[in-house]
């Protein structure tokens, strides 16, 4: 019991039933994950390999066809409301100010709007959003919207957070700024994070462990511990060790891409 990981899955499978002229799709097959408390874990894999489906099951939105999700060693009746989830799109509500978007989790947990606002305000500077509290989300840049969505997820106060390609839609430069910033934020409060990305460099830079998924049906094809020293900065990407790790992740991914293209 003492050694049970923060978040784990046992033989997790998802098959979407046939319907609407579509054949049944097995999106995820037999995934066993173990994520320790305070770990940063990344999932990389080809498009459509079932990463979002896996997140859906972890968050309690998608019912597994087989297998189960364990939180602190036990399987709760429902995962809804137990872990933080940041979907691929920022989903900020246009009818709430940036501040009131970030308090969503606190208010849902029953905190009064006044207290929730005070708590959120204190965090705005750290998330690079100071001065934007009372703006409508529409007027923010992509990077700032993403930071607001992250702040909303952080403020919900769960120990475990699932981040689905949070920087996927950003330009390369903004993306690097955000990576450096996320490293800093994570170092300071060490939440357990499961992170989905297409970007292998991003995965190596941020993670303790990188899991490489195979094409559909999604399984974990390879897991790699990233033994780069922490705290890390963007400079680590220049090291030989970094390039070595990146190449070891790219090899199976390239195989997958070749197989998908029918070139193997």
């Amino acid at each position, binding site marked *: 019991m003492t050694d049970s990981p923060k978040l784990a899955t046992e033989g997790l499978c998802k098959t979407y039933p046939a319907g609407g002229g579509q054949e049944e799709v097995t999106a995820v097959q037999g995934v066993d994950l173990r994520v320790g408390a305070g770990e940063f874990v990344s999932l990389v894999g080809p498009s459509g390999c079932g990463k979002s489906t896996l997140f859906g099951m972890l*968050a*309690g*939105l998608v019912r597994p066809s087989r297998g189960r999700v364990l939180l602190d060693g036990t399987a709760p009746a429902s995962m*809804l*409301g*137990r*872990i*933080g*989830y940041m*979907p691929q*799109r920022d*989903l900020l*509500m*246009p*009818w*709430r100010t940036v501040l009131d978007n970030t308090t*969503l*989790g606190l208010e*849902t*947990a029953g905190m009064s709007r006044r207290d929730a606002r005070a708590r959120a305000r204190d965090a705005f500077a750290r998330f690079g959003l100071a*001065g*934007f509290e009372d*703006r*409508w989300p*529409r*007027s*923010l*840049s992509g990077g700032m919207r993403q930071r607001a969505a992250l702040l909303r997820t952080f403020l*919900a106060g769960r120990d475990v957070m699932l981040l689905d390609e949070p920087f996927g839609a950003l330009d390369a430069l903004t993306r690097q700024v955000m990576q450096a910033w996320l490293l800093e934020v994570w170092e300071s409060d060490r939440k357990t994070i499961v992170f989905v990305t297409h970007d292998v460099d991003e995965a190596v830079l941020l993670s303790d462990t990188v899991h490489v998924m195979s094409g559909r049906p999604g399984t974990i094809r390879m897991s790699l511990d990233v033994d780069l020293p922490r705290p890390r900065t963007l400079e680590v990407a220049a090291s030989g060790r970094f390039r070595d790790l990146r190449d070891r992740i790219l090899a199976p991914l390239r195989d997958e891409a070749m197989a998908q293209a029918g070139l193997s």
Partner: protein
Amino acid sequence: MSGEIAVAASSPVDPATPGAAGGGARLRRIVRATLPPVVFSVLFLTAWELYCRWRDVSESALPPPSSVARALADNRSLLADNAWVTVQEILLGLALAVVVGVGLGALIRSSAVVERALYPWLVVSQLVPIPAIAPVFVIWFGFDMRPKVLVVALVSFFPIVVNTVDGLRAADPELIDLLRTLGATRRRIFRVARLPAALPFVFSGLKVATAFSVIGAVFGEWVGASEGLGYLVLILNNQTDTAGVFAVVTLLAVIGIGMFALVSLAERLLLPWYHAPRREGGA
């Protein structure tokens, strides 16, 4: 104009100061917006006036604008008293339509069974001819304001319900999922996401409803009324006082435009986010 928005959007700390140039631009914008309708109206009324004079059209067939204006001026207190009655009926009827319309919309969206059961009846409610149902309302409620308010509500609630139902479907399903992962209940999801997403639709329905409501009030006053602009139209028609009828129609048009402006203003005040500039607007 779009340039101004871009500047305002990217400098939150020092909000764009409305300088002299800004004031001038604002004036120019107002002029550009009001000039076309004013010019067109003047041309149209002048043509009408000249046509009536040159062809010597009889006053009872088509009164010239000058006669209509005189009828308005001569009967101003009579017109004002009756207009006030009609305005009250419209306001109360619209308020009732909003309450019933949004309530029914929420009820319909609450379950597929309810939706299937109620929707045909909504359509039926709009097929009932008003002249047929208005006397029945009078039998039920008597000769006071209630039957007229009810007619106004009957013709106005339909666009509100239909738009509310569509609006309650408009919330992003992924946003609903996000709220569920935060542990939100169905009721909270409704209050936090579905209802706010529906409000712009509700206002669209309400704008359509204002046009119907004026006609509804006039129809309502054609049965069992002793005051109001609809009642006045009946009397003036009997006296073949066409200029008087046109004066009432003018007043009804003003009321309709006023109602529409009122709803638009309420929308701007209640949904400031809906009219806020988009960042892309500056590009």
